[in-house]
């Protein structure tokens, strides 16, 4: 008996901006309920990877398969309906709509296979219930990131791509987010988590991919990654630039 095919498989993915290859043959796969970390120095292509998988850009080469079908180049809203969603590194809520309306739009158009969500419950699990009637513009950046997450969850994704949700949070908030992410994975959602905080990544992920210059240079558990020579080199090299 052959094992279940992965929910997401990325195969030799290429994304060019002009002559520059932001993604240069990236390959990996992801299973339901799994939390995969995606780390790498600034500009290594992590956000671009999420942008291509979520339909913001069409790939220039290679393929993306989701639940057994090729999805490269499909428009974002179609991908959302298939069960893919994401958060943004710089949060992108609908600023003049209320928090509740932000989620209600996604609830109305996201075609959540489990039917309409209970918005109050969803907001409560992400600590946004007290600000439900506020306009999104009035939230702080951490809250706006959680609102991105709430909007994504309202569409009932099977694959969730999280881009630096934890950046800028204090330790208590970090612990809280770690619990929330693990809970989402436990419900069967496959998660790709991009993060610079290695401790955080190590705590929540089952497996990590380390990227450099659009390519994957390591795949395995976090404990091994920090022992890996190339990984260490890339990060030390990246540090004196920053």
């Amino acid at each position, binding site marked *: 008996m052959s094992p279940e095919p992965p929910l997401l498989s990325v195969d030799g993915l290429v994304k060019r901006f002009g002559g520059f290859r932001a993604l240069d043959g990236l390959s990996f796969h992801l299973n339901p309920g799994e939390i995969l970390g995606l780390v790498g120095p600034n500009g290594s292509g992590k956000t671009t990877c999420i942008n291509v998988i979520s339909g913001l850009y069409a790939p220039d080469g290679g393929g993306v398969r989701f639940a057994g079908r090729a999805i490269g180049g499909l428009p974002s*809203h179609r991908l959302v309906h298939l069960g893919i969603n994401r958060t943004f590194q710089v949060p992108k809520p*609908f600023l*003049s709509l209320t928090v509740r*309306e932000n989620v209600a739009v996604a609830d109305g158009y996201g075609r959540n296979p489990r039917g309409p969500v209970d918005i109050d419950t969803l907001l409560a699990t992400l600590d946004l219930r007290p600000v439900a009637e506020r306009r999104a513009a009035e939230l702080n950046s951490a809250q706006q990131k959680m609102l991105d997450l709430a*909007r994504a969850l309202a*569409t009932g994704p099977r694959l969730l791509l999280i881009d630096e949700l934890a950046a800028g949070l204090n330790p208590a908030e970090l612990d809280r987010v770690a619990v929330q992410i693990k809970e989402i994975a436990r419900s069967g959602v496959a998660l790709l988590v991009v993060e610079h905080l290695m401790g955080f990544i190590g705590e929540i992920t089952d497996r990590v991919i380390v990227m450099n210059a659009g390519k994957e240079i390591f795949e395995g558990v976090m404990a091994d990654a920090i022992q890996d020579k190339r990984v260490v080199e890339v990060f030390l090299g990246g540090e004196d630039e920053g």
Partner: protein
Amino acid sequence: MPRLLRHTLLILLPLVAALALAPALYGNHLLLFNVIVFLTLAQGINIIYGFTGYLPFGYVGFFGAGAYGFALAVMHLHALPLVALAAGGLAALLLGVLLTPLLRLSGAYFSIANLAAALAVLQIVSNPALESVTKGPYGISLSGVFDPALAYGVALAILAATTFLVIWLRHSRFGMALQAIREDAISAAMAGIDVVRGRVVAWLLAALVAGLTGSVYAWYISVFYPETVFGGEITIFAIVFALFGGTATILGPILGVVILYGIYNAIGISAPQYFQLIYGLLIMGLVLFLPNGLASLLRRRGIDVP
């Protein structure tokens, strides 16, 4: 949907009733008709600008297309006014479809391209070479169908339908989706919204509204020149009225027309060129400093504007 019903009863009904009774109480029939025209056009701007963020400086192109669609149907097909009205609406819709690629542009680029498109349509319509079709620059006379009383009633019906459309947008899922697109198109797509389709639908609705209004205008005045129905001041007025009152609301454009068109008629008629200037500057000021108009000032004081 109680809010839809409430706003229909509290805003739409009184508005239509007042304008239906007004000709019996006030002698300047043309002025009242123009009020209806600008109320409708301002709501059309509201649909496209308020709900999607596209500011169409060439909005009058649809009005003119509607007027000429009506006129050509009457002149060449001897159509009855109500049939010709549909032809005018269709002409504006076709122009809207033709211009959908403009929606790929954003901000000022869209506005300018749309203005250029409206000027191009004016140049085509008023081209002497097309005299046998459009009468070129010599203008249109439709005295055979002249019926201002009936045209007034039809214009009022178009206003009612348009205002109802805005009330519906204000309270419907689709209207919320359009506002989401306006706020952030990428996030809207991630909410599952088909962004392109939403924009196109709003664009065509706005085009249809202006086209029908242009048709009924052609019917009402019956004699007009290309510049009459493609005049840039029509766009400027419609935009300034909508922005002044506040877009993405139901009442904003109505307030804008009542206040600014009121001022214009009280003191501006004698020197209209200054008003085009003043209102043009007012648009710039509003876009820069008070993008949500009077409604936002009232909201800041805790007064909710539907």
